[in-house]
């Protein structure tokens, strides 16, 4: 299996250098490029075709939120892992809602950084489910303005609830006594019905609609 190709986007070169050292030390991860703002990031993604983009949210010129929107709109888009100093940053939730696959605190340990990149790349489980729930709670709209969900089958509903708890496909399969392939097809059908590109957005939609209660 070839190494996961990573693009680092941060306006602080020392952060990029640090992350590069951490990531390059892993044999299965490979930093293929760096960018100092969102506009550069979009151009680099086009030429370098990374698998995962580690994206700072607050940057001069084109910020991480805007760059995430631009990146995920394309087919064959890389997964976006948002980098943030503070979890309580409004931009983080907006970036997740806009299509980022997860977020990572800059104070994470090197081990958490590399694990997060692998998780986001695999796309089979939600990164930091508790933090996502906290963010969703902080950004919850009034009850009468919540967007509805399309009709889901009972099975899909069960799968969505377990996704929100951070379970991987294999864990969901074990919980529901189903085959992993069956779970994968439910997930694919869910993403399709909800019109989102990965499970992070699916879970956020589930919270926003009130389908999965926030407590």
């Amino acid at each position, binding site marked *: 299996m070839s190494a996961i190709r990573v693009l680092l986007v941060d306006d*602080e070169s*020392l*952060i990029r*250098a*640090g*992350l*590069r*050292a*951490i990531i390059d*030390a892993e044999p299965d991860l490979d930093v293929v490029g760096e960018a100092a703002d969102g506009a550069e990031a979009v151009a680099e993604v086009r030429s370098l075709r990374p698998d995962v983009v580690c994206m700072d949210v607050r940057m001069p010129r084109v910020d991480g939120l805007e760059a995430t929107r631009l990146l995920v709109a394309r087919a064959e888009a890389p997964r976006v892992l948002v980098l943030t*100093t*503070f979890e309580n940053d409004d931009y983080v939730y907006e970036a997740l809602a806009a299509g980022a696959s997860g977020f990572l605190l*800059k*104070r*994470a*340990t*090197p081990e958490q*950084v590399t694990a997060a990149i692998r998780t986001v790349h695999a796309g089979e489980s939600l990164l930091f489910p508790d933090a996502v729930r906290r963010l969703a709670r902080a950004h919850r709209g009034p009850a009468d303005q919540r967007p509805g969900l399309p009709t889901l089958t009972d099975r899909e509903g069960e799968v969505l609830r377990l996704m929100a708890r951070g379970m991987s496909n294999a864990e969901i399969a074990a919980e529901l006594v189903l085959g992993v392939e069956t779970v994968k097809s439910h997930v694919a059908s869910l993403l399709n019905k909800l019109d989102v590109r990965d499970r992070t957005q699916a879970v956020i939609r589930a919270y926003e609609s009130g389908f999965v209660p926030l407590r």
Partner: protein
Amino acid sequence: MSALGWLRTALLSSRTYMRQIYLLIGSALVVGFAIVDLGVVGSMLSAQVSMPVLLAVAVPIVVVPPVLLGLVSAVRQVEGVAAESLLGVGFVDGSPGPATTWPQRRRTSAWFLLHLVAGLIVGVALAIVVPLGLAAIVRPLTNDSSIWWYVPAGVGMLIGALAVCLALGAAVTALAPRLLGPSVEDRFHALERRAARLSERTRLARELHDSVGHALSLVVVQAGAARKVRDTDSAFVDGALAAVEAAARTALTDLDQVLGLMRDEESADADEHRPVADLAQLESLVIATRRAELDVSLTVEGEIGRMPAVVSRESYRIVQEALTNALRHGESPVAIRLSVQTAALAIEVDNPVSPARSSRRAGRGLRGIQERVAVLGGDMTAGVVDDVWQLRVRLPLPREETR
């Protein structure tokens, strides 16, 4: 029972009598106005003008002067101090200053009128009703027992006067904060200013949050990376350590700066933020005094810059007071000499005095200097020698400070 208990407490409290004093000040003011009023009204009565004309002239003459006086800005401050010290009113936002707005003036004027009216009533009660009541009680006892009912009537008058005085004291005390204290608008403006300060503070906090958060993230990432590659890439580790050091230093500088700004704001609030002058500012003090056309010479021997801060500050104040004294009496030239000796700082101030003044001159304006010298454990002499006022101060210095 509880009413009696209340009465007992009231009569035993010094505050009750202080309030009556406040009301009696009102009575005294009424007498002042009344002298003028009586003159005018009396002359009109003797001129036999008709009642409507009398009222049309007399009412404005009685009412207008107190109203106008109450509008004077300083009255608010005076009444505020009196209300605090005599009525025992505590104003929420501090003592009322001179009125600065028309609504404040109007409310002060209303308060002043109230003070006068209450003073008039208390004055009448104490100067007329009480003596009458006493006389009524005493009359039947001494000669004519057939008018025995004078006694309860007299007692009633005394109780009534007492009740009126106590009630008025309580009433003005309750009303003082409303008329002399800050109005709703004053409070609103104060709140607005506070809100502006708070939002500024929030902005500062957010900036601090961002800059320190950024620096600490950098520290975490670089330190984590250094740990990860320490066996394979020692050049990176060196760079990472330098980056960590620089980031932490920047963060501390930012932290320091923002805390400084917040502290400045706080002290600006309390109007306490005045730099404390010390001997470093002595030159400017001398130059400023020369501008006031006082001939001053300054001689400094030794390093006055390397002095304990407290000695430096107090020495400055001592020279300042000496110069102020000289300035007050216009006595030139003033010679100031500071010399740093082995274990002491010597301050000498000489200025000529006119013989006529020399006798009472010696003891004046020295208390402040004496107190400062005493606190620092120094000694001093001051007095007139051959028509020259001489101040000699010696302040001890810790030995290592003089080296």
